[in-house]
């Protein structure tokens, strides 16, 4: 197998809090090959955004490695890291909060180009901005508009254009469509898939909505309280979900079809605290199948069929 474009090894990110260590990301391992998309799915507080930020070193890892083209970026010095930033970009969740309200569209898109000194001529930069706006489907007349004049879909297109400005290789997409209306959401998803094909991009697509990642991902990792509980190629995960949490997530999606009206309560309770978690399965408190064996010892991700990994004491064998 080729070297994956980006890979994490035993990646951990803990935050110190007044009440103890918060395990935001706890021992996560995965590889993303060039041109592929890894979908990362989980509920709020499961550490998926933290993971995204550690991946491109907006946050430093507590332990473990992030390998980009086989090299550990956590060991890079400041200047080395700065030159690498061009390759690693991020699109943020909230198009209302991630754009500076005092900068115009062209200023926002041109900023990374200026900061990284990719282009210096005023004219060249302007041309590049127009080119990017065309790529993401923004009308040229909006070049001097300010973010408040635009709707959510257009703002998110600016976020995409800004991320593309430096010709990145890898983009972390942190819930890029969850703040948008369905019809606009579909437009942005299609745009991102087209761009991936055209430019050979590699994505890590973070979302809480399984139905969104289904369309865009090649592989999906389901996270719960900082850990990856199941990882499989997309069709395998949807056809044959093994972990009880994955099953519950799939069942909880309201399907727009009257025949599948099922209002059973599949999962009770809420996500438990990620501060100093107890040993054993972190999902055990909410799991309908939990028994005493679940709360003892550390669980491993086991490969139950080719490329399908599950971490569960009962079903992961």
């Amino acid at each position, binding site marked *: 197998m080729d070297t994956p474009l980006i890979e994490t090894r035993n990646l951990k990110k803990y935050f110190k809090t007044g009440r103890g260590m918060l395990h935001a990301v706890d021992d996560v391992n995965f590889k993303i090959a060039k041109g592929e998309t890894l979908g990362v799915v989980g509920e709020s507080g499961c550490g998926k955004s933290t993971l995204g930020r550690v991946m491109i070193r907006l946050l430093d890892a507590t332990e473990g490695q992030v390998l980009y083209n086989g090299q550990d970026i956590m060991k890079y010095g400041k200047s080395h890291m700065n030159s690498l930033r061009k390759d690693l970009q991020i699109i943020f969740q909230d198009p209302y909060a991630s754009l500076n309200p005092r900068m115009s569209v062209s200023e926002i898109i041109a900023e990374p180009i200026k900061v990284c000194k990719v282009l210096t001529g005023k004219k060249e930069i302007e041309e590049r901005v127009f080119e990017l706006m065309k790529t993401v489907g923004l009308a040229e007349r909006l070049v001097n508009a300010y973010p408040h004049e635009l709707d959510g879909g257009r703002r998110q297109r600016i976020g995409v254009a800004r991320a593309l400005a430096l010709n990145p290789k890898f983009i972390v997409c942190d819930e890029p469509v969850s703040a948008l209306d369905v019809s606009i*959401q579909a437009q942005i998803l299609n745009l991102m898939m087209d761009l991936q094909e055209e430019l050979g991009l590699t994505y890590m697509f973070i979302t809480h909505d399984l139905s969104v990642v289904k369309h865009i991902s090649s592989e999906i990792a389901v996270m719960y309280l900082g850990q990856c509980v199941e990882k499989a190629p997309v069709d395998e995960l949807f056809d044959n979900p093994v972990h009880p949490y994955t099953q519950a997530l799939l069942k909880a999606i309201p399907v727009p079809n009257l025949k599948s009206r099922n209002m059973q309560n599949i999962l009770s309770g809420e996500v438990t605290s990620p501060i100093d978690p107890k040993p054993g399965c972190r999902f055990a408190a909410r799991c309908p199948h939990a028994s005493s064996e679940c709360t003892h010892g550390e669980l491993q991700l086991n490969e139950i069929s080719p490329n399908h990994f599950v971490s569960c004491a009962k079903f992961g064998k």
Partner: protein
Amino acid sequence: MEEKLLEIKDLCVEYKTDEETVYAVNNLSLSINKGETLGLVGETGAGKTTTALSIMKLLPQKIGFIKKGTIYMNGQDIILKSEEEMRKIRGKDISMIFQDPMTSLNPVFTVGEQVAEVIKLHSEGKSKEEIEKRVDELFLMVGLPAERKTEYPHQFSGGMKQRIVIAMALACEPQLLLADEPTTALDVTIQAQVLKMMKDLKDKLNTAMILITHDLGVVAQTCDKVAIMYAGEIIEHGTAEDIFEGNFHHPYTVGLFGSIPDLTTKSKRLHPIEGLMPDPSDLPHGCRFNPRCPKCMDICTKAEPREYISDGHAVKCHLFSDDSSEKKEG
């Protein structure tokens, strides 16, 4: 015949600012029977929330105006009520759950005090003990331990805050509950819990509900009737069966369904509706959907379509007029 609880006829709501007039709701008519759930579906800016605020008479003062129309609740026109009368109706006969549970609770009062306030205002002569007992009952009803009523909103998670808001809304057993995107801010598993709880409570108390949402999945799981809004109008309405399984639809409804990422099919691309919602201060002539409509005809840009009804399933589109060749498609 089922009993009509709420009937809105030809409602027009405008927002006036110095520069422009926004036509938020245009000639909207809908009705809901006792105990029924109506799903009001549409995208941001379709006028869903404005409709709900009009029913509560909570439109922003001096900006929002009801220009035309009637809103009959139990046979009485709400529009003619004075502010003082409305205050007695809000929370008692009609109550509303707002979209964002994080901001709809007061951060400086305990959640118990906030639930108790509703009861205090609407049931004169209840002793302190009776009110406290009722608060405990309500907490139990929405699945929260009553001991936590002395805590403040920031000590609760999003799903729990929404439960508290629901407890407040149901405190006086209203006849009509307006739920404005009650689960949009919640995680899927919590959304499933809250929806199930709302449905159970609604059945228990026989409350009618207008569920405002943009998520057709949520509608399919909970609603009896569905109305689809676009640019301030209801462009299609009918029973849930008509909308989800019927054989003719408004092109916008077809587009909405096409935009939803489908879990069952393996196709990669989605089929969104091209373009954006029209600016409500500058609505297109004729049918308001015509600039985005894949089946737009000559007449669509000239005349506003009327409603074509068959068996209670109404569609507002020229495609279904009798002299059209492209009949009953979609």
